[in-house]
């Protein structure tokens, strides 16, 4: 690898995080909000692996492993909450999740 420096990978990680953040903020479909959360975690993973590779230290890669575990658990619980919301409100849009409002 000559011309692709670690900075390219870091900027790509930032960009993926930003795209995921954009999806979390502007979308109202909770399914797509959950998918965007996964995208944000992927951006963080790219940055961690890049630092791990450049610093020749395995800790970053092991953290990616744990992030994947937590992401899988988070998706399972999030989708179960989504199904519970759908059973209650027949809708998966975030503006209908108003159970705590009054």
């Amino acid at each position, binding site marked *: 690898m000559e011309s692709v420096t670690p900075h390219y990978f870091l900027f790509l990680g930032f960009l993926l995080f930003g795209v995921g953040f954009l999806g979390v903020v*502007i979308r109202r479909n909770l399914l797509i909000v959950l998918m965007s959360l996964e995208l944000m975690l992927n951006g963080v993973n790219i940055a961690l692996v890049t630092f791990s590779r450049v610093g*020749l230290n395995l800790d970053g890669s092991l953290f990616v492993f744990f992030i994947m575990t937590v992401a899988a658990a988070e998706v*399972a619980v999030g989708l179960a909450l989504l199904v519970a919301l759908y059973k209650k409100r027949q809708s*998966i849009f975030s503006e209908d999740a108003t159970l705590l409002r009054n």
Partner: protein
Amino acid sequence: MNLIDFLFLVFATLSVGGGLLMIFSRHPVSAALFMIVSMVSVAGLFVLLESFFLAILQVLVYAGAVMVLFLFIIMLLDVGPEGAKSSKIKLLSGLAGIVCFGILVVFSLILVLNSVPDCSSCAGWPSLDDRNLVLGESLVFSTSVKSFGFGLFSKYMLPIQVAGFLLLAAMVGVIILSKKFVRESSLS
């Protein structure tokens, strides 16, 4: 332009483009499929970073398990494409999202461009040395799965047990959340 640069360009474009198409797609199924494109190209980026085990895990966990879960939920809830009214993005949240995205990208560009070293030879990738797993106090990055196993079961012994317990807790939580509760008022 060598092969690595070309592959980086392809995977970077696919991952960011898939992400953008995902967050702007109207149908949840097409969003899930664009997300698979994005995840698989992130796995390709992991291959370029020479962490092959993480690339395999990325494909297995994200593009396999997580996306199948998403597609199952989409099938169970039977959500079709959103109508024109419900998919309209609110002005305020759209503005806030664009502003935050712009701040993040500009900030990261400044940060990344400031840290580019002047000489082209000192920027780049240190060569790998697979001979020993531990160097001093820290674990050494290597392409082999063996080093992963060593790290997970020596330095990260407690975190991996906590991760296993977390998965168990998530499973129990999902079962409880998806159980049908009988309302107390309807019983009496």
